[in-house]
Structure formats: C-alpha cells, structure tokens
C-alpha cells in the first residue's frame, strides 16, 4: 500500500481523481468481517477476507452458497443492511476508505467510482418506467449538471453500446417487453453510465440461458477492455471463471482459501477444496463415468467447525487442521493458499 496522498497534490489528473490513483488497486479489501444476528447468535458471514482488484483487471470471486462472496460484495458497496454489520477490516475504492461513509458521501462514489450489476435485473429495474428514462435517470442521479436532453441522448448511446438496438425505438420499451438477457444489458448500461472505475457483477449471468450468457459475458469482457474497468465478477460457475478472469479468489465458509492467476488456480490449485471442486465439475469434453464427488456439504455459516472449515470434507486433514485456521500464505509467486499442505499440493507432491 502506498503512502496516503492528499487530494490536489498534483494537477492534471481527471477532476476528482486522486493523484497516483492508477497505481493504487481499484479495490482493496483487507480483513473484512461481516456479521448477522441469527436466532440470538452472531453469524460471521465473512470472517476476515482480503483481496484486491487492479484497474483493467478481471478478478473472479468464486464460492458456493454461504461462502460469503455476495455478502462481501454488499459490504464493498456499503449495502449491508442492519442488523447485519461490518465488524472488522477495511475497504478502499481507488485508495479511499469507504467503510463507515455516510449515505450522501456514498452517493458521490456509487455510479462514478463503483457500480454493481445483480443477478436478477427485474429487482433493480422499475417495471413502470421506460428503459430509456431509467438509464437517463442513472446518468442524472450521479451528475445533476447533465441536462435532460443530453441525458436522453447519452442513454440512447449507452443502450446502443450494450446491444439494445435500434436504441431510439427500444428506449421506449418497458422492462417486461425485454428478454432476460436484454434486461441484464440495460442494467449494465446503467452501471457504466457514469464511467465507474470498478464494476462489481454478482452472478450476472446465472439466471440466463447459456447462449444468452455467452453474449452478456462477451459484452462485459469488451466493456472491461474498452473502459479499462476493474471488474469483480462474483460467481459459482467455474466455466465462466475460466473464460473471463485474470485472477481468481476462492472463498469457502466466509474465508478466502486460495488466490492466484486463472492458470495457477485451474492448473496448479494448492488448496484441497479448489482441487476437489475442479475435479467434481462435469465437463462436456469428458467421457461418461462416475464423477469425483466431494463428501458432505459446505458448513452452515452458524455451525462452522473450529480450525480449517474444509477439514471435515478433506482427505488430507490432520488433527492440527481441526484446531487452527490456516493462514493464507504464498505457495508460489502471486499464488496464495490457506492450507498447511498448500506448497506440496501446488507442485503435485501431495494429491488430495
């Protein structure tokens, strides 16, 4: 982490830019913990997660239900609703700490610095407004200086860019007149309307058919390159990850268990969970035959075992795994795993 800088240190940047912002990660999450009260107990949905996303980089945050991946995203966006709360850690967006910001401070960040796309666009679109108007409003909410007619023109250009064509005519459609894939395109148009540096997409294609999914992933990939976006893609789908991510962060039971480049994760995974997960996924290129299943299921957030949360399902687990949570430590350059056997698994000396 570089030394803190004061706004206005150096002239010449984009207005509102912090000096040296390009060198800072677009997103830096350190030791994030989020708790929810459930039936009088406190459940740690996220129990100390650290990761970062650089400008122009696509990072996949991978995990199953209960892994804490979506709660992490909400915490980053300042959207954890009480009684849930962030109890520990730090989140910096473009170098600026954002935890504890007031709602009006968030308003200057959301849209312009960071934007989010959700799994189900219907929950975020207003069913009774035309989509052109909604995109135009997304522009004006974050930039009141834009006139109504300018916003309308920019909305049409954005719709065109995300593939809603002919944009001028389609802008008059209501959300229910669009297919699921088109609605997701509209959400993406709204998310990029104010040119954010960081885009967080939470399972953006999970509800879509596979041919539509391919189109939307292509769009995200193109936009990411065009705009130099930092893209944090939250997904459970390892196939999607393989096709789009530069780096992968694997979460299990509220913690990051492995982090590395996409090739390191898929070729030289160092955590037994990552290995087992990759081995269990059916592939269209495989011959028929029994799949290598993982025994058991992920623990309930309220009933995580002490020590390594994967130990009850792990073929390598020893007594020490069941008492102490293993640290996330380097197993190779730019590759870290939270397993006491990580370095041996990474080089294939130990096979879970």
């Amino acid at each position: 982490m570089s030394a803190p800088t004061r706004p206005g240190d150096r002239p010449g940047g984009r207005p509102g830019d912090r000096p040296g912002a390009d060198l800072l990660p677009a997103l830096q999450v350190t030791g994030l913990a989020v708790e929810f009260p459930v039936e009088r107990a406190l459940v740690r949905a996220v129990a100390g997660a650290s990761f970062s996303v650089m400008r122009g980089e696509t990072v996949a945050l991978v995990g199953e239900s209960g892994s804490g991946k979506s709660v992490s995203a909400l915490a980053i966006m300042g959207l954890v609703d009480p009684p849930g709360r962030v109890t520990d850690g730090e989140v910096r967006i473009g170098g600026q700490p954002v935890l504890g910001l007031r709602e009006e401070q968030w308003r200057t960040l959301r849209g312009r610095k960071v934007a989010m796309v959700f799994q189900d666009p219907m929950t975020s679109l207003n069913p009774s407004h035309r989509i052109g108007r909604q995109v135009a409003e997304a522009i004006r909410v974050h930039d009141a200086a834009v006139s109504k007619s300018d916003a309308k023109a920019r909305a049409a250009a954005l719709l065109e860019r995300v593939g809603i064509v002919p944009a001028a005519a389609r802008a008059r459609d209501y959300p229910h007149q669009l297919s699921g894939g088109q609605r997701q395109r509209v959400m993406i148009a709204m998310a990029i309307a104010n040119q954010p540096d960081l885009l967080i997409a939470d399972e953006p294609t999970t509800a879509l058919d596979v041919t539509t999914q391919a189109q939307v992933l292509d769009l995200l990939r193109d936009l990411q390159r065009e705009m130099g976006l930092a893209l944090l893609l939250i997904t459970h789908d390892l196939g999607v990850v393989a096709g789009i991510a530069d780096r992968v962060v694997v979460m299990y039971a509220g913690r990051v268990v492995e982090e590395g480049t996409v090739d390191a994760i898929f070729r030289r995974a160092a955590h037994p969970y990552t290995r087992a997960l990759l081995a269990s996924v059916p592939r269209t290129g495989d011959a028929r035959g029994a799949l290598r299943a993982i025994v058991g299921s992920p623990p309930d957030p309220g009933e995580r075992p002490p020590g390594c949360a994967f130990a009850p399902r792990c073929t390598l687990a020893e007594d020490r795994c069941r008492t102490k949570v293993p640290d996330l430590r380097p197993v190779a350059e730019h590759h870290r795993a939270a397993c006491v056997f990580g370095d041996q698994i990474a080089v294939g000396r130990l096979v879970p």
Partner: protein
Amino acid sequence: MSVGAVPLLEVEGLVQRFAARGGHRLAVDGVSFTVQPGETLAIVGESGSGKSTVARIVLRLLDPNAGRVVLDGDDITRVTGRALRRVRPRMQIVFQDPYSSLDPRMTVQATVAEPLRVAGRRGEVGARVSEVLDLVGLGPELADRYPHELSGGQRQRVGIARALVLSPELLVLDEPVSALDSSVQAQILNLLVDLQRRLGLTYLFISHDLAVVRHVADRVAVMHLGRIVETAPTESLFAAPAHPYTQALLSASPEPDPELERQRRRIVLRGDVLDATEVTSGCRFRSRCWKATEECATTDPALTVLGGGEPSPARHQAACLHPS
C-alpha cells in the same frame, strides 16, 4: 439396451398450445421419442424450449392438445380415475429445487411416507421408508428432521427417496442438480446413476446443462422452441453435433479450463430467441442461424437421419436443411 425391445415410454406427436397474447403459443409442437427400459434419455433445451412441458405431459399433469403417451404398451394419454391411479405409481418426478418442493412442516419420514399413505399402503410405511432412505444414503437418524435442518444435498436425497418409495419404473428428473451447490452436484449425479443400475430404473432427464447430460445420458434430444431439432446417442451428439443450434449450445457452454476457453472459437448467436408465436413458416432457428438461406424461410425441416436411412432411436438425426 436391446434395440427392438418394447420401449417403456413412447411419446408420439405431442402438441401443447397455451393461450397467449393475440392467439396461442405452441409450447410443444410435434414431439416424438421413445425411452427403452433401463435407459436414460436426456431432453436438453433453454427456457421456452418446451422441455418441462413435455415432462408434465408425460407425467399426466397436463393434457396435450394432440399426440399420445404410451407407457409400457398402454396408451395413458387420456386415462382418468382408477386407471390413472394405477398408472401414477409407475412414474414419478424429482424436482429441481429441493427447497421449495418439500413441505417445511413435514419431517423426512412423513415426506417420504406420504405417497404410500395416499396409495392406501399405510402398512408398508415403516419398512419401506427406512429402505428407501438407506437407498439414497440418508441415515435413519435423519428421519425425524425437518427440511430446514438439512443441507441442500440431503434435501434432494429426500426428494429422490420420495420419488422411489412407490417403486416406479420411470423417473422424470427435472433439472435435479441445477439448484445444488457445485460441490454437491457430483454426489447426486453419481447417486442417480448408481440407483439406476441397482433398481433398473428408466430416466427421462430434463436439463439445460450439457456437461451434466454428457455424464448421465445414453441418448440426448435437443429441444428448441417446441421441437426436437437433434437427437442422437450421447457420444455421437457430443462428438459431431449436426444442428447449428446444438453447435451453438455446446460452444456457449463454458468449460472450466482457461486454455480451452482461450482457444475456443465461440459461436455467439445473434439476437434473442424468437417467440414461437412469431414463426409461421420455415425453420424457427433461422433468425439466429449463421447458415440460414432463403430456403430456410419457407421449408420447415423435419428430423432426418444423417446420411440417410430409416429413423431409429440409435441413429443420429437432425432437423436442418444444412446439417454439418
């Protein structure tokens, strides 16, 4: 599977219309297939393909506008009353979502026993329920639990046990692993394959996931807008998909392998799926197809054996004027 044996399930010329704005929508439009005893036929398709409607017709949950469903030689398309009650136990369904398909107020024991009670076979409940719980890998200590006390995988095992309790011959599996965590999917798929072998079950496997289908199916039928556009033995379909839609589906299915993903030349389809109401002639895929010609706008292609010959379930067939 011996070719020529009596199919356990035979479906012929199914048509299902639903009322829609400005007329009707053909959800299923002339679907025919057979499933041999002990075989798994997978029906693959995207939303709106009609695959789930076919499943509901087969199970007699929906009366088709045309066509027939023959179970083990008996036409069951229009049976009602007592005759239908005799048919029901022979075919059962496993649903996609074990969260919403189980009654939250019923224990595992009560859930699995219910079909026996409804069938008036209360006397068998005790022995039979523990037998099927054991079959699906659920310990007796789980019998008194409620759905919310179970994991997703355990819930789906309960759904399977409930479907098995009446000793059906045919199981309709409607996206049985789509709602499960990825680390649990493989367990359930392996269980289904194992149960089939042990009990001689016949599966109609409905899915959108080609990778899953590859692992469980003997044969595959690909549905698109109410029609079967390609059908073949699994190996043949994956080795040499002939219909452009099947090729697009396969090419769009993401593989968990970054090297493959980088090399792949993805076929990205134009536009969205046509509404079946909009199609009055020609091939329904043509608006998204890169091979479409003028002929495709006028000629509605029928399923044809590739390379010619008589259609049979073992042959690779496609409904396309320009198959690969």
